[in-house]
């Protein structure tokens, strides 16, 4: 039963997120708002129920598998990808590297500065 309880909590939060996204016309998908809903609920409740931890951590362990079906969709766009192949390759690699470097460096500096400033 705990697995069913945990899944119900997750799906319930997703449902609430979906409702929020539709009714307030927020351009953020339901599951992401569902994450916010669950986080707020956990902060109020004060601890993670065992059933929720079981279901949630089970799902997160196989997170990468869940991306496969959408990725297979690349096969539909072979033509477009072929037309812009090198542009895509160069843009993806360079821009991802720049983003990783800039974000990592900025956060690293700020984090060190802040934890030092707070007299950690």
């Amino acid at each position: 039963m705990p697995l069913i309880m945990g899944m119900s909590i997750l799906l319930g939060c997703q449902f609430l997120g979906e409702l929020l996204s539709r009714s307030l016309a927020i351009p953020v998908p339901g599951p992401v708002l569902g994450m916010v809903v669950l986080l707020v609920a956990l902060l109020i409740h004060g601890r993670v129920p065992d059933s929720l931890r079981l279901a949630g951590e089970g799902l997160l362990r196989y997170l990468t598998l869940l991306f496969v079906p959408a990725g297979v969709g690349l096969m539909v766009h072979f033509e477009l990808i072929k037309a812009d192949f090198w542009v895509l390759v160069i843009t993806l690699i360079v821009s991802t590297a720049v983003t990783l470097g800039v974000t990592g460096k900025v956060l690293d500096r700020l984090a060190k500065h802040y934890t030092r400033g707070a007299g950690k």
Partner: protein
Amino acid sequence: MNLAALDELWVYLSGNPLLSLLATLVAFTLATRINRLAKCSPFAHPVIVAIALLIGFLLLAGIDYATYFEGAQFIHFMLGPATVALAIPLFDHRERVRRMLVPIVLACLTGIVTAVSSTLAIGLLLGARPETLLSLAPRSVTSPIAMGIAEQIGGIPSLAAGLVLLTGSVGCALGPWLFRRLDIEDPSVQGFTMGLAAHGFGTAQSFASLGAMAGAFAGLAMGLTGMVTAFLLPLIISLFGL
């Protein structure tokens, strides 16, 4: 059994959700094995290998994507509750997140602006087609959000989803190497950066190789980046005059 019956059986099976579901799980298991054989090389990321195996299989078997997705959608559907579940590690590490709140918000904004404008600038410079460019723009955001954004700004949602996945695997390949070069050691910083630049892939990798705290920060970055990008991207697009 004669040949005609076998033929009918194949027609039945290839249109059945069972086959694509089974093929997806088998491909993923194989891909994980191959990744281990390749000494966990980021260039043989299990997801990319699994996708390549499946595309090969579908083309050989003559099954189109819509038919495949009828079965695979059961796996795809679990992305929703899994995204919600990211609140759990986030809750577990709430103290550390609270302490780093200001750096996190600033880094998130810097990261998003860097990701979107570097993508658009390089794409424009190299002369990408407008629909490719608009599908590329949301590439560092988790796929469900990226598809929504791409649709909103006039890109192609399913192409955007594919580019998001490629970004994820590029990020996983480059991340550890870049962190070493730039002397970034803090696992929470590494996790956050991976989650921002490489969304779910970066998050999954952070969980697997850097531990639960890095995973929590990656999940936080992924959620935050998704939400903020959804609001910021249309603005940046108009700045570029697209």
